[in-house]
């Protein structure tokens, strides 16, 4: 933390700088050719960027970096000062002032102004800032089995205060148990010539594959230029020519398949060539595969009507190929969690610094793979949850010791498969959530009535209601009580859900449940009157034939007893107001959602169906009990039921769970 007095010194310094910046910009409007003024603007921006970054204004520093580039272009003669440039610069200046004042202008404002700056300097500024974007090119790499590191430190290393033993300790910490250290003494001078303060020993260190190259190189921070250093991956034997395979060339059906696949990929001796493909192309392929699956369904439908055995044989063949193509395509889109965990390591590090709370950050299941779109959208919600865990969850060490806990807290980010879903959780061993307090706060905020009966998990879910914040004090880390509701809406937009578990005094766990993939799901197609509906097969727990006590009555919801448990049943005909012939022998589809089991009464089960999810139009987007629609083989549309939303809309919960929170 930076204390108030330092902040004040900083405020005074920046106030002078922005004043000078504004004056120079306004002067430039009158005398656009004044090189001195351009330099003045550039220098002011540079200093603002520098001190801003040191005082934690990362967004400011990033924005000024691009702003600066525009004036760098002018300085180097690649652009000229125009009234337009001054105009945009003044707007950019306003953004700087807003950011320094601690306001939070809309995020797209930065990009908008950067684009405008680039436009008025005719693109030269953009060239400066975008030069380090990674080129999209074929990328070939072999399977890494480990690292071979050979290094020899500069002779004066110890004289200037370096500590070689600490370096070796650090390497062993990075590599863990599999690390082998050998001293290389071939360069040692004869005893008579040996100066004890000089460094002549070299080392060879073998590290396991899990060690990250950047961590290893970080050990030699500052010294790489002055020392002998070679770091090479130990590669498995690579077959000549290589074989082009997708990252996970296996089916995505079950968790065991998944894990075996990634283990197989890690086995030594299975070197692979990998290719980078642009995300748009993958989306394009996924769209086409979706269309193919729909067309294939229509073809099967037609063939079944024609009853031509030759045609059926071809159709079955096409069906098999289409499904194989679908699985492969979905597998290509899967990206391991490790692609985003790096930034969480960093965040954890920064949070520890900012909050002064000492904690271990553990990441589990980094190889768990998720659809790339899901992974990208998860980053922000996870950052939010992680911040909350550290800021509000973990106690400081004195409180922990007083409570008889380990001095250092632990925050665990883990990812694992669960059926067709992936569970990502952030767990802390902090102070936990107090359900009574949450309840009381929710009543105060008018989110629930005084007498509302809630289960424990429903009570915790109140945390994610818009406008709810239990933070006793607003801190700079977790903002002002906005955000947790955004976590919920982001996850729900991905057809996922958020569950919160907590034990007062022992810690909390936020679990995001997400579908493996977004585009095609295995669905169960059901008939209700004249309508057809589909639900994700993964949510189906079982199907009941003709339950006796269901035929009486026609309320939308009822309750039956099933294996000594009470289960709520929704009659979809009544819930959705469907017309058409009634089946005298209705079926009940049991579905699981969260910790609730409910039944859907339908007329007929048609069977499992490759459901290509199509988004509903914006007009229908408020119908949240449907997560989308799919086109059936005969060209009709079936709506996809979002079971969790349906249960909520009917006000049903788990009847067997204890009611009070």
């Amino acid at each position, binding site marked *: 933390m930076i204390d108030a007095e330092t902040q004040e010194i900083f405020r005074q310094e920046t106030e002078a700088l922005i004043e000078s910046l504004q004056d120079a910009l306004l002067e430039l409007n009158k005398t656009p050719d004044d090189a001195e003024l351009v330099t003045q603007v550039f220098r002011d921006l540079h200093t603002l960027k520098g001190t801003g970054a040191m*005082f934690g204004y990362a967004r400011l520093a990033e924005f000024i970096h691009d702003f600066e580039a525009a004036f760098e272009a002018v300085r180097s003669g690649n652009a000229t000062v125009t009234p337009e440039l001054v105009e945009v610069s003044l707007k950019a200046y306003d953004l700087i002032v807003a950011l320094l004042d601690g306001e939070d202008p809309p995020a797209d404002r930065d990009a908008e102004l950067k684009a405008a700056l680039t436009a008025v300097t005719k693109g030269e500024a953009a060239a400066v800032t975008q030069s380090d974007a990674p080129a999209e090119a074929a990328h070939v790499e072999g399977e890494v089995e480990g690292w071979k590191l050979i290094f020899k430190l500069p002779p004066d290393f110890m004289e*200037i205060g370096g500590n070689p033993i600490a370096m070796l300790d650090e390497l062993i910490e990075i590599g863990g148990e599999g690390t082998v250290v050998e001293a290389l003494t071939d360069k040692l001078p004869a005893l008579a010539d040996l100066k004890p303060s000089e460094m002549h020993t070299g080392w060879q260190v073998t590290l396991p594959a899990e060690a990250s190259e950047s961590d290893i190189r970080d050990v030699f*921070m500052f010294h790489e230029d002055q020392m002998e250093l070679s770091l090479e991956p130990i590669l498995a034997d690579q077959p000549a020519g290589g074989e082009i395979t997708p990252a996970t060339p296996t089916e995505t059906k079950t968790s065991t398949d998944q894990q075996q696949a990634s283990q197989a990929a890690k086995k030594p001796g299975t070197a692979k060539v990998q290719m980078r493909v642009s995300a748009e192309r993958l989306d394009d392929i996924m769209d086409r595969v979706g269309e193919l699956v729909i067309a294939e369904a229509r073809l099967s439908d037609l063939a079944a009507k024609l009853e031509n055995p030759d045609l059926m044989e071809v159709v079955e063949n096409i069906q098999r190929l289409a499904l194989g193509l679908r699985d492969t395509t979905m597998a290509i889109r899967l990206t391991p969690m490790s692609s985003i965990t790096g930034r969480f390591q960093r965040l954890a590090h920064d949070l520890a610094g900012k909050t002064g709370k000492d904690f271990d950050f553990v990441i589990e299941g980094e190889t768990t793979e998720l659809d790339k779109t899901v992974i990208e959208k998860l980053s922000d919600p996870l950052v939010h949850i992680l911040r909350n865990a550290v800021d509000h969850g973990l106690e400081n060490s004195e409180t922990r010791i007083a409570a008889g806990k380990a001095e250092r807290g632990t925050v665990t980010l883990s990812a694992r498969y669960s059926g067709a879903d992936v569970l990502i959780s952030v767990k802390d061993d902090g102070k936990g959530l107090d359900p009574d307090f949450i309840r009381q706060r929710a009543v105060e905020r008018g989110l629930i009535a005084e007498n509302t009966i809630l289960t424990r998990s429903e009570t915790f879910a109140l945390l994610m209601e818009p406008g709810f914040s239990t933070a006793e004090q607003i801190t700079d880390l977790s903002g002002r009580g906005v955000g947790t509701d955004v976590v919920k809406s982001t996850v729900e937009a991905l057809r996922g859900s958020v569950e919160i578990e907590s034990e007062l005094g022992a810690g909390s766990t936020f679990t995001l449940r997400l579908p493996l993939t977004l585009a095609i799901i295995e669905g169960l197609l059901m008939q209700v009157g004249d309508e057809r509906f589909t639900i994700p097969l993964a949510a189906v727990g079982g199907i009941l034939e003709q339950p006796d006590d269901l035929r009486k009555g026609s309320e939308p919801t009822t309750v039956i007893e099933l294996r000594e448990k009470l289960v709520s049943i929704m009659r979809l005909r009544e819930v959705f107001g469907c017309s058409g012939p009634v089946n005298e022998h209705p079926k009940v589809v049991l579905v699981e959602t969260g910790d609730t089991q409910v039944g859907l009464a339908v007329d007929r089960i048609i069977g499992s169906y490759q459901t290509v999810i199509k988004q509903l139009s914006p007009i229908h987007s408020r119908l949240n009990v449907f997560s989308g629609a799919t086109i059936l083989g005969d060209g009709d549309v079936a709506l996809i039921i979002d079971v969790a939303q349906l249960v909520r809309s009917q006000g049903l919960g788990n009847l067997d769970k204890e009611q009070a929170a």
Partner: protein
Amino acid sequence: MSKDILIIDDSPSVRRMVAMTLQQEGFEVTQCEDGAQGLETAKAKRFDMVITDQNMPNMTGIEFIQAYRSDPSSSGVPIIFLSTESEGNLKDQARSAGALGWIMKPFEQAKLLAVVNKVVG
């Protein structure tokens, strides 16, 4: 035993921030506002680490390092050199003069702590 760190920088806000950051981590920090004062302080007492800015009036950071290293008692004391990106080529000079490492301005508190902990931790 807490480690003693000497910070030499003419900018009060930077010096103060470095000092605050390190003190919060339990380091003892001594502040000097120029190289001459720094030399005097560093010769009177052995520090566990010295951090010096480059751009200072009268004596630059590199000049300070050269002067300090000319005294054999400075052997084994790590020096971290602060400079800005545009002075990138100076880090080699600082290294030859006897600096162990450097930090580019602007830096965040976390970066400073990471370097300090690495060097004296």
